[in-house]
């Protein structure tokens, strides 16, 4: 990645934006899935990335975190390259990305959120277990600590992943479809936690696919369809016009 001049200059200021992306392009086999994306997310926002299937929503998050290689572009988090601030960043991957039949307990999975801070070789100890229990309590799963993870429902799995991210004690969170296939109780629990994170001054960026709930849940929105079609505060940005441009003619529900 290049050392983009403007991004570095912006990074030097005291209150650098949690997310600042310039000209980010990602291609799988020559086909661009994300094209020339510029993105700034202000501190303390609860932001949604919204767009049709195949719009590159997950790719945007993964490219920011360096999980997929970018063909071009610069990413700065709090004004720094990701490697330098990774301990301030929490990540919730898609629930379906792991094998839930893996022989491990709920508490173990939550403690994985602390592996980055623990460093090499050191094992989680009593204080880590205590902290993991607190995180489980926050997502309403404290009674499941000893449970084997294959015995969880989809919503419970999602809450465990969220607890693992809370255990990362990050300043900024990236979440890939945390509401996909969860029950109503879990959805309410998750949005409650996201809003509490925001109220604590954290920045949260969420891949979301439900247009109906978006304006209610989030205060910032990024409309994406390979290119970033619009990005800004929810009320000003979540307009029929912008949605029409993002989804093409395929959108019918709007009044």
């Amino acid at each position, binding site marked *: 990645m290049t050392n983009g001049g403007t991004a570095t200059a912006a990074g030097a200021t005291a209150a650098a934006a949690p997310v600042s992306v310039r000209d980010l392009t990602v291609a799988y086999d020559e086909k661009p899935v994300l094209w020339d994306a510029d993105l700034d997310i202000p501190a303390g926002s609860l932001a949604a990335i919204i767009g049709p299937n195949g719009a590159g929503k997950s790719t945007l998050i993964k490219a920011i975190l360096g999980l997929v290689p970018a063909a071009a572009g610069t990413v700065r988090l709090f004004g720094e390259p990701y490697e330098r601030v990774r301990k301030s960043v929490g990540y919730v991957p898609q629930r379906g990305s792991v094998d839930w039949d893996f022989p491990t307990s709920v508490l173990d999975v939550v403690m994985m959120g602390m592996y980055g801070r623990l460093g090499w*070789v050191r094992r989680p100890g009593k204080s880590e277990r205590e902290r993991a229990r607190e995180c489980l309590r926050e997502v309403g799963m404290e009674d499941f600590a000893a449970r084997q993870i294959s015995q969880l429902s989809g919503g419970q799995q999602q809450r465990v992943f969220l607890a693992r991210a809370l255990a990362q004690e990050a300043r900024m969170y990236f979440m890939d479809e945390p509401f996909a296939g969860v029950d109503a109780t879990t959805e309410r629990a998750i949005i409650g936690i996201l809003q509490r994170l925001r109220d604590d001054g954290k920045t949260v960026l969420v891949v979301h696919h439900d247009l109906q709930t978006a304006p209610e849940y989030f205060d910032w929105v990024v409309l994406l369809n390979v290119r970033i079609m619009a990005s800004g505060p929810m009320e000003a940005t979540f307009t029929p016009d912008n949605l029409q441009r993002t989804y093409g003619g395929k959108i019918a529900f709007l009044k």
Partner: protein
Amino acid sequence: MNVLRDLFLDYTLRNIALGAAVLGLVSGVLGSFAVLRRQGLMGDALSHAALPGICLAYLLTGSKAPLVLMLGAAAAGWLGMVLILRIVRHTRIDPNSALGIVLTVFFGFGVVLLTVLQKRNDAGQAGLDKFLFGQAAAMTQEQVATMAVLGGAALLVVALLYKEFKLLAFDPEFARSLALPTRSLDLLLTSLLVVAVVIGLNTVGVVLMSAMLVAPGAAARQWTDSLSKMLALAGAFGAASGIAGAVLSVTAERIPTGPVIILCVTLIVIVSLLFGSARGLVWEWLRQARHRREMRAAMAAEGGTTP
């Protein structure tokens, strides 16, 4: 009873049993990770890939010292592993096909080399073909010591990096988001698998080795839902089959040790599949049968009209 006494006193039996136990312990622990990462076939490919390495090491050095042959096997196994990982990363060939390609090409080359060596009528080559199915009966104390040192080193690495390997196996993407060097960890864990293969050359040989990597882990998974317990149990299953195989093959006349060890571990797998406390099939069947009975009873009580 005599066999039990011999286990401690008889030089040959003690060597075979110790060597087989080391092999079982190491391959059980490392194989468990391969099983969990759905890379059971990786062990098969790596062990078959080791054969040309053994032949080339002998061709180049003219020596049959255990360390020389083991290094040759390790180099070839490692090369096979790197090839597989490269093919998967840079082409559209899927992992299973990549494993199949490397396995057959390397093994075929190894068999050609073996044949060439045999045709040369050179007395020194005699015995290289024992690496196909192993020849535990000829195991020396020196070999056992080499195996123990290599195996101990591999287990030490697993103990130190247990937490990292666990995360790599469960959620590699999250591991990468924590900036763990997942590619290097993957390479290291697979290299340890090569070490396990090398340890198994003398005892079970390249053809049967994959069973020693997959079977103990698969059996252990049936008894526990905890990774650390699974690793310990897999090591114990592997070591127990090693010792049992050694003892059985010595008691019965002229039965090769390697295949007997494989039969022992297979027996453990079958028992575990059926009766394993965490997910045994028998308990599952019983539960389903009871469930059906209860449903039928409830329906009969409710409707009265049974078909």
